[in-house]
């Protein structure tokens, strides 16, 4: 059960981080001069999304 939960969590985080990445790419394409700001915010948001997924994975580990 834990492995299934971890898999679903990874799925959610993958979709989330993929969306962040795609929108960041679009934003960079539209405004190449703002690449630094966009990259920072992209990493920050990705870290937050990843944090939620990692909670789920740790709970999955605990559930064994």
């Amino acid at each position, binding site marked *: 059960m834990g492995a299934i939960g971890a898999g679903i969590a990874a799925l959610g985080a993958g979709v989330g981080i993929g969306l962040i990445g795609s929108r960041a790419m679009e934003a960079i394409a539209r405004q190449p001069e703002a690449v*630094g*700001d966009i990259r*920072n915010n992209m*990493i*920050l948001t990705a*870290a937050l999304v*990843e*944090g939620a997924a*990692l*909670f789920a*994975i*740790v709970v999955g*580990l*605990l559930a*064994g």
Partner: protein
Amino acid sequence: MKVDLRKLSILVFALVFSFGMLFAQDHGQEHNGESTHEEQEGHEAEAGHDSGLSHSYCGGHEENGKYDPVTTVMEHIADANEFHVWKGVHLPLPVILYAPDHGWTTGLSSMFEHGHKAVDGYVLNHGRVNRVADPSFPKGEVHIDGILRQTEKVIGPSGKEEEMKEKDTFYACYEGELYKLDKPSTVDGGFLGGGITSFYDFSITKVVFSMIIASLLLIWLFLAVARGYKRNEGKAPSGVQSFMEVFFVFIRDEVTKPMIGEKHYERFQPFIMTLFFFIMFVNLLGLVPFFPGSGNITGNLAVTMTLAIFTFIVTNINGKKDYWEHIFWMPGIPAWVKIILTPVEILSLFIKPFSLMIRLFANISAGHIIILSLIGLVFLFGNNGESVGGAAGGAVIGGLFTAFMNLIELLVALLQAFIFAILSASYIGAAVEEHDHHEAHEGAH
């Protein structure tokens, strides 16, 4: 001089990544043998379980069993009381143990003779100090016949039959009797096999030892850089100073200035830089697969918890009036929303450092687990030495993937240090920010 330094560093990196694989394989091979005998013992124990625990299987050391990937990986990423350097070569580390009913026990971990000797009821179980829970076990130094692993079914908290979990329990064999071992004493308890226990372990463990090495390296490097800044005051940086200045400027311009703000960033620059460089160094040291490295430092919950608590304390000590107002009584919203929002805000106060802790721990642990699993393919495909072709295939596949994973881990090591620093900076920035938007609130009222 400069050219020499560059050549040297390239040489070191090349050595690390080419020999690292061999070391890791060698290590795993030895482990294969180890887990073999332990598994065998376990089987024997299970066989003997029904007939009541008798001592006939206490000293059984037959080399015939299977490679257990999960146990091997978990043992490699866990902390240890001795440093495994080479096949059969261990660096003994100081142990400092305290039990409320016995007092202090100190010494070197070599005094346990790899699980063949008990000192004051403490034994070494796969590199970790465990304590015999039974008070009738003799104090002082006694020889034991070995440590026995048994897989027992433990009924979960709900007490239902379906929720039975398999758990490993360890026993020390002494004069034909089995004594149950307490769990190792760790803060990461539930996750990596620790738990509530009868003793406290203040030892310089493998992780602590690696952290000391990383700190000494950092001090050495930064003293050199500081000397450079003194020498080249008002001039262009030189040597290692110009290499590090890139990082300093990056932290200032990309992390602290935008996150904390022009007014306050200088005060927090040292703290954020310390976090960044410490995490980066221990992450990189953890990637080195042989002696001074190989400790899973930031993959240890106790370490990441301490770092997160530092951020928590620095954030809340520096919290301005506005910060607390926004937590306890958010201005500019209807009163009934405030009643819902205040508990959420108070919770988020603790969730922020908690997520910092989990993020770093899970990222680094996951990387180590993946690399160890890939190396484990060699033994899995090799079918415990029966199939040489399988082992060779496993070595090729595992080796190639490990090379790629190491490169990804190199990125993750830097990225996680950056993320920890930038999130800490943004939390501090939220705490010290002084809003000038009372007019906006007035409008909302």
